[in-house]
């Protein structure tokens, strides 16, 4: 204490430490106060009531499992078996999974999980629930009659005169006047590789490998491998062709937008750099243009451009291009202001003309900065392109929003999310790899 006062007169160490200690306490206190304000401003106490946990359950269950519907048409008779109840997942007439037994034209046994069984016998449905008893419904033109072993209707059955819903841990049964439907849940993503109409459906990996290597053709005019690739690529259920097309569109948007912005921004950056543009007025004007382009933001550019060009990848690419021209213009002009003037003088001293001075004196100095910025933004713009695609309609962003809006194809939503993550991470490593390669290779400067 005495020593400090001797060295630095007027410096009170105790007061200094007191101030520091105050700051160390005040900063967390301010942050805490802000979070308390946010807690009430965003109505987080009310969130618990609004949150739809049943939606969360559907989402999680649907993302890793699927259900198969066994449906009897109660008006004209006849049973159909369809995955997720969709037309494109319907088993062809006369075929079906092994847990459905067609005993006669109008009597069907459906085995559910845990050894439970539902019998559809014409207009009558019988379901023996272990530990509860036999549930029976009878469909008549007047409605659906329900008979239970005990008096009260338990909460896992909802019944009215027009509709009966039974949900157990083994499956679900819905009976209306129009149809009797039994649903059984399975683990996995259904028909991901081959749909039911493909000759390769239901074969194990070993069998498929054997088929691919053997010469016997399953489809007459194609080799087995080509036929498999064709069936996977044209899968109606998961639409791999369209999804990959959408991923391609998104990457295309990011590539065209980023590189286009770089091409537009580079000449403008020269006009905005202090050491290359002598006119203050020009410099200020170009800089305001950059600020404007950046300030209007990708959201508003997307809206404006989609009015002129309609939805699609071009609109997204242009929106990225316009916004990033502002960003790159700023970054490039800062890089240009930092170039070493001695190198340019050196080139000039050999009798180089102005254009050659730029080519050999300036460009080699800024290329590493330029390339590394471009590649960094390429990765970040892949994410932006997903978001812009969701707004303007294009690429994987559009598919994702469509799948979420339907609120039932959650397995597709999780598939798209996985694809987006893979796409971004691949772009990240590609841009990182290129950055290291190009910048290391460019050390020579020629």
């Amino acid at each position: 204490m005495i020593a400090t006062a001797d060295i630095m007169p007027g410096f009170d160490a105790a007061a200094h430490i007191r101030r520091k200690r105050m700051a160390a306490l005040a900063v967390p206190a301010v942050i805490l106060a802000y979070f308390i304000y946010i807690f009430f401003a965003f109505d987080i106490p009310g969130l618990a009531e609004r949150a739809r946990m049943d939606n969360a359950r559907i989402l999680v269950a649907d993302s890793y499992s699927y259900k198969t519907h066994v449906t009897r048409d109660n008006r004209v008779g006849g049973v159909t078996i369809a995955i997720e109840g969709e037309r494109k997942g319907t088993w062809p007439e006369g075929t079906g999974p092994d847990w459905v037994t067609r005993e006669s034209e109008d009597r069907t046994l459906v085995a559910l999980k845990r050894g439970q069984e539902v019998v559809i016998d014409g207009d009558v449905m019988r379901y023996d629930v272990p530990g509860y008893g036999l549930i029976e419904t009878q469909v008549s033109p007047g409605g659906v009659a329900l008979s239970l072993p005990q008096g009260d209707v338990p909460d896992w059955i909802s019944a009215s005169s027009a509709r009966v819903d039974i949900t157990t841990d083994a499956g679900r049964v819905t009976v209306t006047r129009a149809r009797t439907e039994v649903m059984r849940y399975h683990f996995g993503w259904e028909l991901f590789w081959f749909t039911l109409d493909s000759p390769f459906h239901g074969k194990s990996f070993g069998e498929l490998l054997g088929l691919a290597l053997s010469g016997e053709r399953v489809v007459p005019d194609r080799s087995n491998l080509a036929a498999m690739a064709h069936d996977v690529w044209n899968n109606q259920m998961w639409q791999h062709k369209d999804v990959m097309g959408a991923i391609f569109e998104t990457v295309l948007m990011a590539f065209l937008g980023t590189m286009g912005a770089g091409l537009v921004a580079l000449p403008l950056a020269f006009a905005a750099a202090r050491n290359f543009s002598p006119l203050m007025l020009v410099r200020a004007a170009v800089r305001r243009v950059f600020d404007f382009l950046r300030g209007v933001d990708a959201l508003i550019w997307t809206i404006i451009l989609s009015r002129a060009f309609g939805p699609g990848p071009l609109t997204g690419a242009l929106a990225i291009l316009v916004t990033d021209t502002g960003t790159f213009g700023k970054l490039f002009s800062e890089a240009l202001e930092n170039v070493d003037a001695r190198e340019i003088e050196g080139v000039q001293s050999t009798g180089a003309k102005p254009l050659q001075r730029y080519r050999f004196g300036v460009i080699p100095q800024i290329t590493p900065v330029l390339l590394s910025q471009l590649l960094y933004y390429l990765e970040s713009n892949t994410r932006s392109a997903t978001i812009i695609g969701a707004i303007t309609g294009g690429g994987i962003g559009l598919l994702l929003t469509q799948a979420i809006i339907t609120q039932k194809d959650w397995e597709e939503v999780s598939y798209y999310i996985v694809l987006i993550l893979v796409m971004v991470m691949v772009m990240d490593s590609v841009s990182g790899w290129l950055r290291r390669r190009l910048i290391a290779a460019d050390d020579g400067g020629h």
Partner: protein
Amino acid sequence: MSDLTAGQAGVARIGDVQAAYMTMTRRKRMYGGVMLVVFIALMVSGFRVADGRNAGGFWDGIGNIFQFPGEVLAEAGEKIANLPGLMWTFLPSLIETINIAAASTLLGAIMAVVLSLLATRGLAKWPRLVGLFRRVMDILRAFPEIVIALVLIFILGGGPVPAMIAIALHTTGALGKLFSEVNENASLKPVEGLRSVGAGWGQRMWLGVIPQVAPNYLSYALLRFEINIRASAILGFVGSGGIGYDLKNAFSWGQGRYDEVAAIFLLLFGTIVFFDQLSGRYRNKMIGGA
């Protein structure tokens, strides 16, 4: 005589070197030229593909590009007296958008500090899990905000909370990577000193590392805040509250409410430019002062 041969040999050697240098340069230039051609081909074909897949073509649309801004400006010009009032009306939404950005930046930065310290070699509490925490940050960073936001909107309903969580998660990954690069340059001496007096991991980090890296952390967090304001406006557009939501409503109403669109455009533009300048100034100050 011997001098002469030595001189000749020297000349020959210089000639060799020159020839070798010229071939190398020529080859390098050729590679550069090939890459340029490939790049131009990619750009041109990519543009054509994008043009073909778009609903409206580039050359049809380019003439209409000023039509929509023109309509908005014309209508806003007619009702220019409304603008200040409308801007006042939309001010609460704007504050919500800024709050989403601020809260998510704070939350994300706090999580990023912890994650980045756990993912830095030499500082990590569990050195074996360094790789795991890095992967966690990579995955968080790869999630576009909209993906998490849309899923959360389905569960939690509309409002600012889904956007806040979505942006906070992405921010954690993005800042975590930058923070761990900063951490790697921190001096280990204070940490060792604290360890020698028996400080726990939390104390070593809080007292030994954070004071060293705080200016850089703050500078990156400010830059993120500016990015997150844009993100929170965009997420409002797809259904989470804030000014983006109002913009979507006014916009889908179409003609007749373009004065509202203009007011929101102005508010958003002003906010973004303001925070852009603010963060630029303070970042310079902090990095300069540190």
